[in-house]
């Protein structure tokens, strides 16, 4: 496995992190283009206007997109449509130019996209509520999908799971039950559970929003390290300092539209171009 293409050139890659997080997954090919959403429309059955209207953006492989926006702006819905949890009514979602989901009108009431099991494993997701499977141990949670879905070798999967756990500082908790862990620990295990499938894109939906403040840091540090290791990620967060530190690319959603997009996160936070973005960022500032 070669190192993932590093498109952000300003940081030195932590080799250890690369080997720990990027293992023998589906290797990005030379014509690898990353992840793309084009003209995405999400409409619910009884709503008068779409929740997401004509959303287009592209995330280069190995970079991090942070999605910001007030509540109700459609951030979580966006991640859910990308994960296949909600069917889309217009546009396309593609990975490396391969379309994995296509808008189909008439699916407003449907619960899920009809994406195949194999396609789903290419996009990982961690949710806000730190829900591990309570009927499985930490190790059981992480190894379940690779064993059931990818039919990988048990010994190899367990070895990899232990390596991931070690990386997030939880190797000694491999046999613990979820109820024995703190919220922050559960979120770190949930990240391992997503990573072991070698997702080409990892979606993080406000993963620290339900945590006690002291536990936020331990989770965000893991995510920062992942970013350094070249994991492509789409992150919805309300932690602005973290967003500024990790983003290669920012979009601000409001009312189902992208109101501002920037490929220079520092510039976006320092000098937002639109009035709406200024307003939004201002709500996080205290003199």
């Amino acid at each position, binding site marked *: 496995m070669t190192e993932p293409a590093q498109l952000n050139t300003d940081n030195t890659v932590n080799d250890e992190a690369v080997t720990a997080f990027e293992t023998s997954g589906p290797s990005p090919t030379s014509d690898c283009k990353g992840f793309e959403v084009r003209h995405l429309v999400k409409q619910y059955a009884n709503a008068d206007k779409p929740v997401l209207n004509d959303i287009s953006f592209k995330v280069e492989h190995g970079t991090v997109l942070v999605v910001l926006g007030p509540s109700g702006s459609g951030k979580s819905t966006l991640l859910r449509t990308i*994960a*296949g*949890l909600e069917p889309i009514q217009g546009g396309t979602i593609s990975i490396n130019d391969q379309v994995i989901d296509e808008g189909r009108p008439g699916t407003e009431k449907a619960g*899920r996209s009809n994406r195949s*099991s*194999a396609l*789903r*494993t290419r*996009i*990982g*997701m961690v*949710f806000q*509520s730190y*829900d591990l*499977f*309570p*009927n499985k141990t930490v190790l059981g949670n992480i190894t*379940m*999908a690779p064993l*059931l*879905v*990818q039919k990988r070798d048990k010994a190899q999967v367990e070895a990899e799971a232990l390596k991931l756990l070690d990386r997030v500082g939880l190797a000694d908790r491999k046999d613990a*039950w979820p*109820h024995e862990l703190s919220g922050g620990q559960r979120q770190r295990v949930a990240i391992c*559970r*997503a990573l072991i*499938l070698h997702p080409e894109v990892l979606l993080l939906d406000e993963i620290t929003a339900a945590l006690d403040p002291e536990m936020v840091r331990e989770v965000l540090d893991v995510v920062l390290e992942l970013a350094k290791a070249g994991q492509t990620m789409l992150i919805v967060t309300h932690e602005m300092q973290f967003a500024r530190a990790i983003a290669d690319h920012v979009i601000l959603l409001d009312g189902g539209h992208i109101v501002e997009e920037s490929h220079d996160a520092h510039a976006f936070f320092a000098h937002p171009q639109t009035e709406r973005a200024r307003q939004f960022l201002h709500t996080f500032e205290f003199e």
Partner: protein
Amino acid sequence: MVFDWSFVARYAPFFVNGTLMTLFISVFGILLAIVVGLVCAGIEIARVPVLRQIVRIYIELSRNTPLLVQLYFLYFGLPKLGVVWSAETCAIVGLGFLGGSYMAEAMRGGLEAVPKVQRENAYVLGLTPMQSITHVVMPQAISTAIPGIVANVIFLFKESSVVSAIALADVMYMAKDLIGMYYSTYESLFMLVVAYLVILLPISVLGTWLEGRFDYARR
């Protein structure tokens, strides 16, 4: 009146036979109830049209009529319609009919208690709908439903005493028979209580163990 231990010794074998009959009827009746409950809970959770309405009607009908009436219908009513079942069959079907609705409600409660995000996690991880049910939803649903299911099992064992009314020689029937023949009220009731305790105490202990074994989702 003096408690007559020699009577107990003499007629204990009758109670053993009656206990075996109670066990036979109850075990098969409860198994039927569990199957009926699973099917009904599945139909309700999957919101299958038409079948769902039928299940609701069945549950209301089953829970709001006494087992005795259900048994009379099966044993005395059905032959008028040309269906003649043995007393054993009537008893098992009757217990299954009554217990099925109780089991369905306990199982539905368990299934509904599994948070939606659990299934979403399973979906995102690539699990097929079947794998999601067997590896994620069912284990957690069982965990929540077990106390209710165990309570229903015990309830149905006790409810089986009603089958004596259709001339099945269960343990209740033995007690009534002996009281009628010999006025041995104390001795017979004593043996009856012992017989039910012998059946139900181990089940109660087993139930408590099961609740402990499956309690991960409630912690």
